[in-house]
């Protein structure tokens, strides 16, 4: 069912996952692990997500916009400061409450398509 790690090209990537829905977080985590990535988190809240973004060595981050405690803008800012690539996942058609510059970031809409997720991770997080 899942692509195996060797062909995914994502092996060894440390990816922060911020998503407040347990089912979705667990699902995404399984996908990422199956692709050979190491999942940091998942974190359901602004507080936990920010801590991990601050503390962990990361190759990239996947951020749900609306999470427990508000939105992931502060986490994204922290990642930008660290020059860590990230993209958003959201259930909303048009995101609200995030700065214009962040609206130019890649946004994947839920439900997330596996192939699209893998492609975006490869494009954004894998540095040649």
């Amino acid at each position, binding site marked *: *069912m899942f692509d195996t790690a060797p062909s995914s090209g994502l092996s060894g990537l440390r990816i922060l996952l911020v998503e407040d829905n347990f089912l979705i977080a*667990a699902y995404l985590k399984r996908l990422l692990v199956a692709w050979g990535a190491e999942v940091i988190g998942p974190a359901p809240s602004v507080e936990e997500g920010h801590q991990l973004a601050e503390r962990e060595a990361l190759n990239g981050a996947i951020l749900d916009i609306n999470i427990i405690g508000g939105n992931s803008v502060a986490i994204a800012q922290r990642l930008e400061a660290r020059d860590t690539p990230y993209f958003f996942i959201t259930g909303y058609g048009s995101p*609200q409450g995030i700065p214009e510059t962040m609206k130019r970031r890649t946004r994947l809409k839920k439900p997330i398509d596996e192939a699209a997720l893998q492609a975006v991770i490869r494009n954004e997080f894998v540095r040649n």
Partner: protein
Amino acid sequence: LTRHASGVEVIINVMGHSRTEHALAAEGVTNQVTLSDQQFRLMADCAPVLLWLSGLDKGCTFFNKGWLEFTGRTMEQELGTGWAEGVHPDDLPKCLETYLSCFDARKSFQMEYRLRRHDGVYRWIIDHGTPVFADDGPFQGFIGSCVDITDRKLAEQSLAASQARLRAIVETAVDGIITIDARGTVHTINPAAERLFGVSAAEIVGRNVNVLMPEPDRSQHDQYIRNYLTTGVARIIGIGREVVGRRSDGSTFPMDLAVSEMRIDGERMFTGIVRDITDRKRAEQRQVFMMQELDHRVKNNLAAVLSIAEQTMSATTSLDQFRTAFTGRITALAHAHSALAASKWEGIEMSELVHLTLEPYERRGSKRVHAEGPALRIPPEVASPLCMALHELATNAAKYGSLSAPQGRVEVRWTWLQDDGVRLQWQESGGPSVVTPQHRGFGTELIEGLISYELGGRSTIEYDPHGVTCEMAFAVPGPTSASRLAQAPAAAIALVKGGF
């Protein structure tokens, strides 16, 4: 002028100002006409008015043909005080009082009263009475002339009534009504508009209507009118649109404005009807917000379904197993959704939540499930994960635990902890002897994940040989923070700007 219709010479003052004429006569001005009694009668009878004369005793001494034909009575009936019989009883006291007091004061009078016509119909007449003085000075009585003013009076009354009606409509209208001229000057403003803009008619009438608008309309309104008057291109007249109004305190509000044009005495005037649409705009915004929120929930739920499918697939070994587990989980999600939708997303009672999860395992008349705890409203973001967690416990109990045995029971109790915390205990009994599973299944993972991850709480499952127990503790936010849906966005209202 004598009041005797009996052959004495009468002097008619053609101007009706006896004293002045008398003075003039004394100075030798001869615009007096001397008439014979017969000439007087002829003239009086030809006059298209009702005439009367009275003498020094205040009694009437003469009525012309016009009067007698009007009342349908004879001279004999009307002479003296006979005429008073024809005056409407309601009007008679005032009529007599006016006549007698003016008579005594030798003062001319004018009064209106109803007089019965020959056909029995009372008609309004206006009666002009004037004192009469003889050529050499002495007072001789009064002469009066009357005209039927019923038609005029009815027209006046109907006009007054129609004006009162129109005024009442405008005064009591819920919508604001303002009239301006082609220069933008306010002519009238009704009470609704006074309230709407926080101004009084006294303040605003005569001023430019643009004080009721914010910029840029305020400085451009005169130009809007000029544009319309020169080009005839209406941008609002006869169309109506949403604009922004400005109250006297400077605050603004969205309003519907409908403008119509009229001509009064050749002048172009405009009527503006305004309605505050703050509430409507808010409702519209809320609806947009609700749609977005619904969209979000649907997508999240679809994502959750995908996730459940994937993970149930990994945790089951046959299609049959998968089907049972998967449909059960999706159904639990759907039940929580239905109950929340029925509550308009305000939350559901804990007892209801427990009931809808365990209902399938209840047997008719049995007391297999016992739920007990204080009234507790569970907000949407807590209800869905809690419902799913209880579902996992229930299916497990039905498969391996107490609900798999006829005498088995489940007790669910919940209590308040401090600081919005809730403790929920699940206790099975009467089932087969419990064996601790060798590895954690997806169900256990789900329960712990949902409670700790989504609700920030904790859960412990124990496989006591007498029955499975599960204890959960989690926070239930208060009713104000209960639902994102209940919170309307504070975003600014976007409005179409415009004017004439």
